[in-house]
């Protein structure tokens, strides 16, 4: 027991300020809070504003209130629905792959074996590779239809080589992103599984559970909190997947790999239509907020205080 200066039992949630006067204390915190506040409010307010006006980054002449015009154009943009669908598919697929494999691997690694620490480092490594490198390594050395590793392996097995980015562009992106994020899911789940009491395993064995039953009835419920965290955090970051698409397909062929993030980029910085891009941005913010709502509740419950 090693916390709280005044005896916690006798001091309710009152601030006990000793020699330091309050104004100085608030000043310590102010810069960070103020800066973050501005960072939140100003750009967001601007995005909201731009979504309701006409603005073109190349053509300063174009101005004026646009009402819901931008939103309507967005809705009617031929890339819009594909972008939404692609975003959903991308996020869902990556979540499933990373969580399922992450869980299985966490269980697999939760035992002693030769060189365990090194093997763990290898599994975690992809997370520290920058997205542009991951994307290009996969697109070229792994997925190239002739010289890529996958092609070489499949032809050796007598199967036809797959031209990943031509025939399965979205799947290719999904593979790349899953590879990047699997270590994250693994690390979180692995950390959580280590806290599963050894005694529980023994009690289950006495109760007659075989490993598979143990996994489903005990391990999974122990991991459920960590899985929830992984899902929420990944979702927030996956909404903004951009670099991998930018470096490999530029959203194509057609709109096959355009997600919401890339769509906003394309509309804003390629077509220079800031208004409609802002409308798209707002949509992304709304979606993220829905997930964030649940995440914030979880965080608030967990916050450790002195």
């Amino acid at each position, binding site marked *: 027991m*090693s*916390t709280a*200066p005044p005896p916690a039992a006798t001091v309710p949630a009152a*601030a006990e300020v000793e*020699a330091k006067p309050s104004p100085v*204390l608030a000043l310590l*915190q102010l*810069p*960070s*809070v103020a800066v*973050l506040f501005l*960072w939140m409010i100003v*750009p*967001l307010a*601007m*995005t909201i504003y*731009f979504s309701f006006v006409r603005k073109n980054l190349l053509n300063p002449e174009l101005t004026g209130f646009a009402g819901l015009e931008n939103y309507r154009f967005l809705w009617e943009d031929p890339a819009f629905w594909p972008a939404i669908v692609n975003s959903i598919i991308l996020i869902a697929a990556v979540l499933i792959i990373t969580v399922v494999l992450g869980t299985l691997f966490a269980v*697999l*690694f939760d*035992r002693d*074996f030769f060189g365990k620490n*090194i*093997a763990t480092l*290898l*599994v975690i490594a992809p*997370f*520290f*590779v*920058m997205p*542009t*490198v991951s*994307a290009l*390594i*996969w*697109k070229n*050395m*792994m997925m190239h239809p002739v*010289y890529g590793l996958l092609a070489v392996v499949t032809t050796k097995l007598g199967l036809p080589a797959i031209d990943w980015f031509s025939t399965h562009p979205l799947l290719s992106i999904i593979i790349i992103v899953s*590879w990047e994020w699997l270590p994250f899911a693994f690390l*979180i789940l692995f950390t*959580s599984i280590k806290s599963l009491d050894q005694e529980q395993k023994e009690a289950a064995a006495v109760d007659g559970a075989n490993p598979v039953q143990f996994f489903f009835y005990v391990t999974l419920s122990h991991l459920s*909190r960590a899985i929830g965290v992984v899902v929420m955090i990944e979702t927030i970051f996956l909404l*903004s997947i*951009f*670099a991998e698409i930018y*470096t*490999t397909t530029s959203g194509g062929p057609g709109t096959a790999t355009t997600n919401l*993030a890339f769509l*906003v*980029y394309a509309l*804003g910085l390629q077509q220079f239509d*800031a208004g409609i891009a*802002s409308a798209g941005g707002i949509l992304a913010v709304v979606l993220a907020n829905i997930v*964030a709502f649940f*995440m*914030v509740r979880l*965080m608030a419950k*967990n*916050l450790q205080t*002195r």
Partner: protein
Amino acid sequence: MEETKLSKWLFGILAWLVAIIIFFPIFIMMITAFKNEREAQSLSLIFLPTLESFFEVFARSNYLKYVWNSMLASIGSTLLCFLLAIPAAYRMAFYPTKKTQSTLVWMLSTKMMPAVGVLIPIYILAQTFGVLDNIVGLIIIYALINLPIAVWMSYTYFCEIPGAILEAARIDGATIWGELWHVLRPMTVPGLASTALLLIILSWNEAFWSLNLTSVNAAPLPVFIASYSSPEGLFWAKLSAASFLAVAPIMVLGWMTQKQLVRGLTFGAVK
């Protein structure tokens, strides 16, 4: 009930298989970096290592400039971040108020805003203030997006210091500065250092703002590597060499900061 030696062995092999498969693309990149362009296409594991491709990368591009930009952006933003974060975390940990908890949660929630939601205004603001393609722009943005993590992590490390130790220092004659310097600093430096490493890694690898706000002058490594997406001629070896240099040090740092990663990126939701 005890696992048989055979099944233990089998699972060990399986785990290693998984590790090797997952690491394989990185491995390919690493060996291809040491090949010349002709050999690079073949993916063979047997080859004569050469530094030819590294030299080519340096010859054909100002690689060091990109490294410098990456370093400026990562280290600069991390320093700026800590400058803001540590006083705030100190205040929240040692002089908490009823609002402290919600402030912390709010700060963390700012990380949940999707970057793409503010791409347009940030681009316009960067343009207006003349920091488009300027490393200062990246430093500021990285400091902002990492600030919540810095505050949160510092806060948790400060919370772990038992109040009684600071009081003992007070009785031993330390002023408030003495407490900070003689007691708080040595006890929190390890945690704060690994937090700094984590932030440097996150900034180094950042590939949304860097791609959108820089092009030639302030481009950090992720942007430079992205230029290999429209290459001329054979490029696998050069791509690998450039990537190897950009990735290897970060991977090593990342291996050292695993614990901080879990603590920082899950905002404490997983212990």
